């Protein structure tokens, strides 16, 4: 039996597989297919301060080996989340990473403040700042597209989360240089990085000759984008290995459907892996990926999952 534990900036998780924010709602639905407490952690749908209706529909389009979504962060707001969702997850014995966002950097702070005050706060093993969302104060530019905005949000979130709970900054791949953004987030106190959020995309309905999504653009996810996720993880962990960036755990996400997919992200440098879109294809995907990843680790003869993290950097062939 391989020791599947992984350490996320001080917090030890029993295994490295998580749900991806927004692809697993807040747990009740998937719990009918497998006990969500069996995952390394359960990542909740990004929650904002106020209740949000989200965008008009159509909100999704299938794409080759992926999909486009534009949900618009529909959700109940942080108060309802603390009252209903978090206690339910605590009751299940789940370790929870709460994904938070705000329309402004300050709003991130408000959300975190209310979250930390929740009676169920005890089950929270991490706060994921979804900075891949639009900054209303900066012409709607995505926070994570700009190092200064990224830094501001992470600093505010880090300041409000108790020191023993790690803060993860979730980055978008839609930037010229993700290492700079990663550096800004780490500099501001992020304990770990979640990479990557969706890529911006558009699908045109060729019957109606208009964008298929009511919101025009959407986020591209699924196996189609896995090589981009692996590349982003590789670039950032390579920068850590070379000393250009401070070392911190990376949580990989993007296109994981099987245990070997997860292993790709891990070998590229991820200490944990989230399963998103694949859940729509197979509701048991996160749990299955864990079983398959365990089998992969055993096949490679390692004693500890941790031995696989970033291993591809060491095995690279130098031409």
């Amino acid at each position, binding site marked *: 039996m391989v020791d599947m534990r992984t350490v996320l900036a001080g917090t030890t998780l029993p295994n490295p597989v998580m749900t991806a924010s*927004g*692809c*697993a*709602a807040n747990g009740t*639905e*998937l719990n*009918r*297919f497998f006990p969500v407490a069996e995952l390394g952690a359960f990542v909740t*749908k990004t929650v*904002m301060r*106020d*209740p*949000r*209706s*989200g*965008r*008009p*529909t*159509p*909100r*999704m389009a*299938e794409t*080759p*080996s*992926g*999909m486009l*979504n534009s*949900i618009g962060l*529909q*959700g109940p*707001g942080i108060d309802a989340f603390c009252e209903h969702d978090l206690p339910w997850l605590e009751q299940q014995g789940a370790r929870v990473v709460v994904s938070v966002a705000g*329309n402004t950097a300050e709003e991130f702070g408000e959300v975190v403040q209310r979250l930390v005050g929740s009676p169920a706060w005890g089950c929270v093993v991490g706060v994921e700042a979804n900075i891949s969302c639009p900054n*209303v104060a900066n012409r709607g530019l995505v926070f994570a597209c700009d190092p200064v905005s990224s830094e501001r949000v992470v600093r505010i979130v880090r300041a409000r989360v108790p020191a023993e709970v790690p803060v993860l900054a979730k980055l978008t791949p839609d930037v010229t240089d993700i290492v700079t953004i990663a550096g800004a987030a780490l500099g501001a106190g992020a304990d770990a990085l979640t990479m990557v959020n969706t890529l911006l995309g558009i699908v045109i309905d060729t019957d*109606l000759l208009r964008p298929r999504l*009511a919101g025009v653009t959407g986020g591209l996810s*699924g*196996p189609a984008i896995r090589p981009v996720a692996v590349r982003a993880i590789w670039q950032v962990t390579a920068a850590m290995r070379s000393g250009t960036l401070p070392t911190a755990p990376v949580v990989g996400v993007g296109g994981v459907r099987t245990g070997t997919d997860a292993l790709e992200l891990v070998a590229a440098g991820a200490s944990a892996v989230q399963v998103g*879109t*694949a*859940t*729509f*294809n*197979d*509701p*048991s995907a996160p749990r299955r990926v864990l079983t398959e990843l365990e089998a992969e680790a055993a096949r490679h003869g390692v004693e500890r999952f941790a031995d696989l993290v970033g291993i591809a950097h060491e095995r690279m062939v130098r031409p």
Partner: protein
Amino acid sequence: MLQVGGELIASRRAGAYHHLTLVAPGVAELAAPGQFVALAVGGATSATLLRRCFSIHRVTPSGTYGGTVDVVVAARGAGTRWLTSLRVHDPVDVVGPLGRPFPLPTEPVPCVLVGGGYGSAPLFWLAEVLRERGCPVEMVLGAASEDRLFGVLQARRSADGVTVTTDDGSAGHRGWVSDVLGDVVDRLGAGVVYACGPMGMLRSVTEVASAHGAVAQVAVEESMACGIGVCMTCVLPVRGGDGVTRMVRSCVGGPVFRGDRVRWDAIGDGVTRVPEDALGAPHPGGH
């Protein structure tokens, strides 16, 4: 709600549609009329990741093969073409039964069941269940043309009366189901109108039902990515018991809704808008 590795055991043409029978042990046993199944498509090398959802046409809880589920599929895009080109004994992964079934009346009130195109698929089973409870049942089936009607013969067995309409007049009355529905409701003194079909039809059915003193229960068909409530793609605006409109997931909050609760004013032209008075609707100057 189960996920089972199923198997196709029969596939036959039915007009413009394909009628598939799948072995899906366990699913049949749990299902009720109005629920649906979500089928994986494309096999091991598939580029089409999302499941396709189909109303359960009927179930056979046990039998030679274990429980089976029947669905009626219109071949349109990549996934439905794949499903309809499968051969007997091919594997099909099934998740179901999903969604809220048609609510049944507690009293034996007369009911009208309205189906548009393949939307009639779940109604025959519903008709049988209603008649078992003593409800008189009539059906109204409509489609663009005769080949797009599903189950007219079955309807004659399952219901006490059947009215057929087609847009082009190739079968039954020329016109829409809503043209004839009012009369049927009145004649029968129906208390409930159940309907399944395109959004435009469900809206008119709701209007006609209300105008004629019946409650409409409509099964909507929103584009779904997961079918199990985790993706939030399938929402539509529905007024709750508290009068507040929310963007409700049609896969778990539906697919069956009371017609008069659906905010038809926000739906049209292939887009569903968020009503300004919906909970959490965007407001000027920020969300």
